[in-house]
Structures are given as C-alpha cells and as structure tokens.
C-alpha cells in the first residue's frame, strides 16, 4: 500500500520528465520539420559533432562553467564571509538585497546591463574605452558570465549564510581563545565547515552555466557567445532542424550528467 503513495510523484515525473525525454531522444534519431519526419539513426549526432558552430558552443559552455561558477561562488562566499560579522537583523537585509535580482525576469535585467555595456554606456565611460563588449567572444563571454553571476549570487548567499549560522559557536570561541584572527577563523574554520554547501552550490552553478539563455538572447545572440542551449535554439527554432537540435539536447544532457559525476567524484576523493 505504501508504494501507492508514490504514485502521484511517479506519474508526474513520467508525464513531465521521462516522456518528454523519450520524445527528445526519439526526435534526435529523425530528420524532422514536424511536417515530414524521416528516421536517420545517429546521423544527427554525427552532424552535430561535425558542426563547428556546435563544437564552439560546447567550448563556450565550458568557459561559462568555469567563469560563472568561479565568479558566482567566489563573490557569494566573500559577501557571506563579510556579512556573517553583521548583527542578526542585517543578515535578513543582505539576503533580500542579493536575492531580489533572482526574482526579476532575466530578460529585463539584461536590458539594464545592455545600457551598462553600451558603446556609449557608463562602463566605457568609466574605463575611458570604446569597446563593443558583445562584438567578440573575448569580451562577450566574460561580460555575459559576469552578468549571470551577479544576478545569481543571491541563492548561494542564502545557503552559505544559513550554513555559517548553523556552525557551533563554541568552535569560534575556542579559536579566539587560541589567538586566531577573524580572517583566520573564516579561512580555517568557516570555509571547511561549509565546504559541502560550497560544493553543492558549485555543482548547481556549473549545471546552470551551459544553460544560460535569456542573457545571450537579449544581449549577444551570436554563435561566438552561444552556450549549448542557445545553439539548440538556433538549430531548432531559427533553422527548423528539429532532429539536429534534439540530438544536441541529448548531448547537453550527457554534458550536464558528466559534470555531476565529475563533481561527485572530486567531492568523494576530497
């Protein structure tokens, strides 16, 4: 009887996760315009891996994984380590301030950043430069990674702050008695104690990075800045090659699964 209680969850998962996944996999084995569908086996996969644009998107995704994860977790950690010294009432303020951007629509936030990075915008004005930031990969990818990171640190700040507040205070007292400075405590006690949370948030960040879409769509919808997700959109919806796009989506799934396995292995060995 108790297994029947799992029924709704299993049915939901089957309907909204497994069935669509199966459909995507089946579509990836076909050449389809939704008008005519023809089974072509693994040809879409061969085509994807022969496509310089798709391979570029895989490489870009790796760049985004490294940049977004480093920036997002790094900034969130610094913010949290600074905020932990504040009085309790200020903790809520920090949480709200950093979480608000996550509640806003990405496409709207991107419009604000468009103005910041504009040719005649404040960033170029402050730096005294005339850079078209999104006109090439070398500046476009870091700019997008920075925007995505800045927008998404709120979740990590909340988790890190919660983890820090859960640490037994006697550890801090003992460290102070032993003569540890404030930053020595943070470096040698706080960070190791919240390492599992850092690992978990890093994994979530790394999984999210190759799926960045709306920021690219709004600011730099180009091949040289495209993530795998954006490339899937270009091949599927812009060029109408849905079978190819489905094959690329399956590759993205494997890519993300690979990241998860890699992270788990690193964490286990650590």
């Amino acid at each position, binding site marked *: 009887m108790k297994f029947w209680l799992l029924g709704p969850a299993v049915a939901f998962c089957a309907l909204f996760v497994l069935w669509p996944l199966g459909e995507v996999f089946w579509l990836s084995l076909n050449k389809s*315009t*939704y*008008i*005519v569908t023809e089974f072509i086996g693994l040809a879409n996969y061969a085509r994807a891996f022969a*496509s310089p*644009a798709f391979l570029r998107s895989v490489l870009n995704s790796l760049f985004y994984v490294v940049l977004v994860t480093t920036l997002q977790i790094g900034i969130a950690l610094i913010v949290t380590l600074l905020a932990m010294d504040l009085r309790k009432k200020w903790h809520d303020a920090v949480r709200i301030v950093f979480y608000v951007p996550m509640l806003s629509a990405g496409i709207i936030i991107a419009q604000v950043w468009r103005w910041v990075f504009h*040719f005649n915008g404040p960033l170029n004005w402050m730096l005294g430069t005339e850079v*078209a930031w*999104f*006109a*090439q990969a070398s500046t476009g990818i870091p700019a997008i990674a920075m925007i995505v990171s800045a927008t998404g640190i709120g979740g990590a700040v909340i988790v890190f702050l919660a983890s820090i507040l859960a640490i037994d205070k006697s550890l801090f007292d003992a460290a102070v008695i032993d003569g540890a400075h404030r930053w020595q405590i943070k470096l040698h006690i706080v960070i190791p104690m919240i390492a599992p949370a850092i690992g978990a948030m890093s994994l979530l960040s790394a999984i999210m990075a190759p799926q960045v879409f709306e920021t690219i769509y709004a600011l*730099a*919808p*180009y*091949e*040289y800045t495209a993530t795998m997700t954006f490339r899937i959109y*270009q091949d599927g*919806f*812009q*060029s*109408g*090659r*849905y079978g190819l796009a489905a094959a690329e989506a399956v590759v993205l799934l494997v890519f993300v699964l690979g990241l998860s396995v890699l992270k788990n292995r690193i964490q286990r060995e650590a």
Partner: protein
Amino acid sequence: MRKLIPVVFLMVAAALFATGTAEEPQSITVLMDMNAAAFSDGTTMRTWGEEATDLEVEYLSLDLSDGSTLTMDALIAAGKAPDVYFDYIGRVSKYLVPEYAMPLQDKIDVSAFSGLAAFTRNGDVLGLPASGGAQGMAINLEIMGDIGYTVPDLWTIADFLEMADLVKQHYGGEKWATGMFAGNQSGDYLINNWFASFGAELYGDGYESTTIAEKGARVHDFFQHLVQQGYVPPGSATLVDDDYVIQWAKGDLAATAFFESWTKPYFDSVISQGLRSEPFEYTFVPFPRAQGVENVPTYMSYAAFVAHKDAPDAAADWIAGASGVEVQSRLLVELDQMPSRTDITAVNPNPRLAEITAIVQAGGIMDVGLTSPQFAAVRPQHYPVLQKVLNLTIEPQKAIEEYAARVNEALR
C-alpha cells in the same frame, strides 16, 4: 410550478429548433503578422475579411522577434496548424510541400497570378503570391546636396567609393555612406543586393548547392574595406534591422537598400520620436556595379498564402478574396506594394514606385531561392560569417568558403 414546466419545455425546444435551422458561419484560423500594421498587408487583409465575407476568422498572432518560422512550427507540432498562413514568402516557402499544403488550383482561379511556377509542385499550385515590393538603393538627396555629389547613371563601385569618401570627409563619422548590420538574419536583402553588385549568385541551376563561392569573396573584401574606411556605422557586426531602418529614416545613411513601402512608417516613427522634424528627399537608383558586371538584379520580397491540406474550403475562399483584385489594388495604392496579379488596373502615382519598377525592368529580380522549402534553413547561415567579416577577424576568401559550406550543409 407545474404550469411552468410545459412553458420551459417549449422554450428549450424552440431554442433547439432555431439552432438547428440557422446557418452557422464557417470558421477558420489565419496566422499572419498583425503587429506591423503600418507596413504589412495584415490590416488591409483583416479589414477586407471582416467587411467582405461572412466567415468567422480567428486571427492568430505571429511572433517575428527572430525572423524565424517558430510560430508555425510550434502550432504544427501541437497539432494546431492554422487553416491559412500568410507571411513573407521566405517563411511560407517551407510549407509549400505536398505533405502540408492544400492544392488551390481547383478552388481558386489562379490564371491571373504571375510567377506561379515557383508555387507549383507536381502540377499542384500549393500557394499563391500576394503583393510585395522590390528594393532599390535609396539615395538621400539631403546628403548628396551637402557633399555636392550627383549619382551617375549606371554607377559603379568606384563611383560609390568616391561618394563614400565625400560623406566621410563632410560628416566625420556622424553620417555614413551606407548601412550594414549583421546582428541577425534579417539583413539578407541588404547583403544580397551587394552580392548582385559583384555578379555573385547564390544559386546557379537549381537549389541543390550554392555557387556563391565563385565570386563572393570580392563582396566580403569590399565589406571589410567599408569597415576599415569608416564608411559604415561602427559596430555594424552587432547592429540589427531595427537600428538600420532608424538610421536610414533619421537621414544618417547616404545610399542603402530600402523598400518604398518602408519609408512612410519609418519616417513617421522618427518624427514621432523627435529624431527628425520632417522626411528628407530621396530617390531610388540601381545598386552600383563592379567592373565587369553587366547586369545587377534587385531583391524582391513579397508575401504569400498557403492553406493547410485539411483546412475547410472556406480557407481557399478567404485566400481567393485576400489575393483578389480588390484587395491587391488597395495594397498597390495605399501601401505602395507591387501586385502579383496581371489583371490589376489601379495605378499608384508615386514616382518612387516608378523608379523601382524601372530598376526591376532593367536588371530583373535576383534568385535567392525564396520559394525553395530550404530557404528558411539557408537564410540564417550568412550573418554569423558576416559578423566575422565586419569584425575583420576572417579573410574574405575563407569567409565565403565558410558561408558556402554552411549553405550546402543546410541544403542537405
């Protein structure tokens, strides 16, 4: 209470009887662009549909934010293909296949339409062309007056570059010789006109593979020269069509590709935004030609109709009216469109249309495979390459080879 029961019974019976005998209006769905009302045929079509037919038409909204066939494909994938799809031929052509489209020749008198061969598959007419427009190179006479230049008849690339240098010297980067954008796929008309200037053709015989690599490198070389000399606006690699049309209507571009039907709405737009106080004078001339090029065909774009094969006959009736003499005559006069029917007697007195007609008569229309079902897949292949060209990060020859390879891959 008991007395009420027969009364209620009679009322229900009467209502059922009335419903059974009244003739229900036929209902169809039509997918077309209703947003760009000032330029598109949509408003006229809708007005006509409401005035002239007793059909119940549900108009579906067409999302053109990225210029793709996304809306149609989503509807088809959901099993809700519209009865009629009316849009730019470059998107409609994807659906001109027997597996999708309703043969129209037995339902509509198609004898008056020109260019039907491109809509015919295995003897069936699967779609119909609506009105459209050809492009010319729009010359800003205000700028020409400022720089003291008169465009010669049958001008050449050398003439164009002479004019470009005068613009650069006079305005110092405030206005430019011509427009350019590669931020999305919508600039294909602009780019294809330049390919025609250099005698480079996208297709030779049929649409199996492209011939663009034969002469196209010169075009990319020319584009890089425009960028290096500052003859085009900075950051052209990431500009989009919305930037381009506003630059034109503001009067910032001396000579560039434009449709006459676009001029009024964009002038209205910049005037309402306070960017100009009134329109500038302009004229249309052919695109300049490179040395050795005899003929420069121009780009023509038009809308087209396709009905779903399972749609009711009312869909064909709607198309018959919307593509008929009355509607196309109105489009010719009110929206400066060129009709696709040979039996139109209405005349548009606009002298700019006469200039466009002369350009078409002299050079013809270029063939970029608009009616090929692969057009929608081929169209997005150039702008990623063009971005590299305009950013000066690729050699012209390598760029054209990459473009050709991408087109051939899309045609597979």
